[in-house]
């Protein structure tokens, strides 16, 4: 035995950032859930053995089995670890009909978001041309339809000297006209990724056809930086906030959009600190981590239950990355037909999967928008209306604590139609697109 080796190992363990979280209640609840499922499966087996002929003759008419609904309470809903399958800790999203009953996100976690984000077409919104520069930071950015394009509308934080009224916190950047991409196609779109707000909260940047438009709210400047191509249609600030990255099908660029600096980039870059993306062949996904300047650092392979992703990846200061995801056929078979949800993965450790209900949420229902805290992700949930599967879509901003499974309601988002459906064409209305400030 070597006292020195033992001492070195114990010293390392003593200084390790081990959790102080009480693990016992979650383990007990998870074990009870597993035992309950075991009993249900055993009972079901008896029924099947006793009535196989009936089951065979009717099962094609039955809806797929669904998991028991999560029961909301007046406080935060605890969805404790239900099971571990496929290399994921599995949790279930609150069913669409119960989302409105979720407890609100506690104030100490809420990044100053009101219970309703958006505005009506007739709403009178303060304009930067009348207000001038502002010193408060941007909490969110929305787009307002105007003649010939869109104006960015910034939801400001409740800073000193700013109005407390939520409606007065919106500031329309009426000197910035954003044009959609693909105007000659049946499906034009606007680039509004999760990182149009720089980490300092004062600078914004938007990719536009042939250029990047940079805005500094503190001085009220708008700087247009030309790009060498016209088809760059995606971009965002890097996690360090020094650079803005823009992509097209033919290239990528690193910019300082307020200094008109443009550099072509050859290596793999991303505007977030992490990106979950599907592998090129088969099922499964990788989590790639990126540095403050957007350069790739490392990659880990995630368990193979993930299919395509839906939306961008957002990463917390604690290294958790989250994105919407579709599930592989194997996962669907194990999860009673559920086929999409939200995945959250740490740089090291077991990833979590928030499984959306099989019916109700639209395709690509869950879009990660940001993090309210190191382990609390904010995501948009899109649900088809009850009257028609192709009717209006209800969008809500929900929160999921990835380690405990708690879920909260955060805000109602601008509604909209299904993708490729009729968007709200009224001038002055908010598009169903929101970009949240990324907390460091």
């Amino acid at each position, binding site marked *: *035995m*070597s006292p020195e080796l033992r001492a*070195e*190992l114990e010293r390392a363990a003593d200084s390790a950032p081990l959790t102080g979280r009480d693990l016992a209640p979650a383990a007990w609840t998870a*074990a009870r859930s597993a035992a309950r499922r075991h009993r249900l499966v055993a009972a079901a087996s008896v029924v099947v053995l006793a009535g196989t002929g009936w089951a065979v003759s009717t099962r094609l008419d039955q809806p797929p089995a669904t998991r028991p609904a999560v029961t909301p309470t007046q406080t935060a809903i605890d969805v404790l*670890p239900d099971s571990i399958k496929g290399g994921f800790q599995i949790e279930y999203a609150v069913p669409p009909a119960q989302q409105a009953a979720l407890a609100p996100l506690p104030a100490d976690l809420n990044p100053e978001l009101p219970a309703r984000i958006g505005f009506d077409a007739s709403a009178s919104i303060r304009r930067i041309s009348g207000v001038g520069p502002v010193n408060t930071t941007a909490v969110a950015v929305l787009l307002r339809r105007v003649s010939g394009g869109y104006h960015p509308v910034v939801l400001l934080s409740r800073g000193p000297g700013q109005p407390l009224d939520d409606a007065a916190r919106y500031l329309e950047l009426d000197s910035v006209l954003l044009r959609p991409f693909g105007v000659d196609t049946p499906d034009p779109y606007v680039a509004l990724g999760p990182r149009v707000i720089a980490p300092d909260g004062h600078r914004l940047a938007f990719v536009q056809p042939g250029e990047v438009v940079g805005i500094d709210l503190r001085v009220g400047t708008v700087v247009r930086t030309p790009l060498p191509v016209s088809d760059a249609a995606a971009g965002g600030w890097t996690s360090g906030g020094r650079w803005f990255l823009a992509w097209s099908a033919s290239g990528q660029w690193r910019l300082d959009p307020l200094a008109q600096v443009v550099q072509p980039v050859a290596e793999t870059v991303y505007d977030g600190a992490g990106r979950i993306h599907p592998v090129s062949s088969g099922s499964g996904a990788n989590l790639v981590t990126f540095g403050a300047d957007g350069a790739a650092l490392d990659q880990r392979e995630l368990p193979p239950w993930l299919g395509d992703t839906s939306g961008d990846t957002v990463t917390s200061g*604690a290294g958790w990355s989250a994105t919407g995801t579709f599930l592989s056929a194997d996962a669907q078979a194990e999860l009673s037909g559920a086929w999409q949800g939200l995945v959250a993965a*740490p740089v*090291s450790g077991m990833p979590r999967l928030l499984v959306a209900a099989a019916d109700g949420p639209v395709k690509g229902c869950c879009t990660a928008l940001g993090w309210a805290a190191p382990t609390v992700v904010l995501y948009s949930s899109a649900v088809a209306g009850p009257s028609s599967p192709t009717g209006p879509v209800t969008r809500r901003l929900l929160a999921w604590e990835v380690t405990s499974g708690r879920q909260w309601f955060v805000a109602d988002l601008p509604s909209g139609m299904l993708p490729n459906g009729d968007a709200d064409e009224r001038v002055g209305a908010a598009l169903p697109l929101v970009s949240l400030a990324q907390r460091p």
Partner: protein
Amino acid sequence: MDTRLAPRDDFADFTDFVRSRQRAWLRTAYLLCGNATEAEDLLQVALVKLARHWQRVRRDQPDAYLRRILYRDSISAWRARSRERRSLARLAAQPVPTHDEMAEVGHRLDVERALAALTPKQRALVVLRFIEDRTEREAAELLGVTVGTVKSQTHVALEKLRAALPGVDVPVVSGGER
């Protein structure tokens, strides 16, 4: 057989027991995994298994039962598949330590890098033999391997640690029963 889990008083017994030992188990799990996040996951899974069999094992050395799960799960196939390479990115994602903490963090990272060079089974053997003072036979029984495997893998593990931690007095395994 009644597979129902226990009522409320068992829950209280379970939580009291776990809370009294969680820190020690986490330290063991940390050395088995080589990092804190995986350690929590490993322990969480083991605790679920302990809870499922609490009525049976509560009076029969539940601490030993839990530790056996930790050791075996740490080297099981699914954990090996999900294990990712250690990365600078993970270290960068951790909170920035204060100046006074830098030396301790540096030491810990040295040990973590050394542990990362070992296989899960070798890490388990190092913990069993040099933290818990288990004999080679006990370690073999716990991990479900032969004594010969314990000897050979412990020897390899110590060689790796000696190379990764040159300032540490790493023992030389004699190869015989302790």
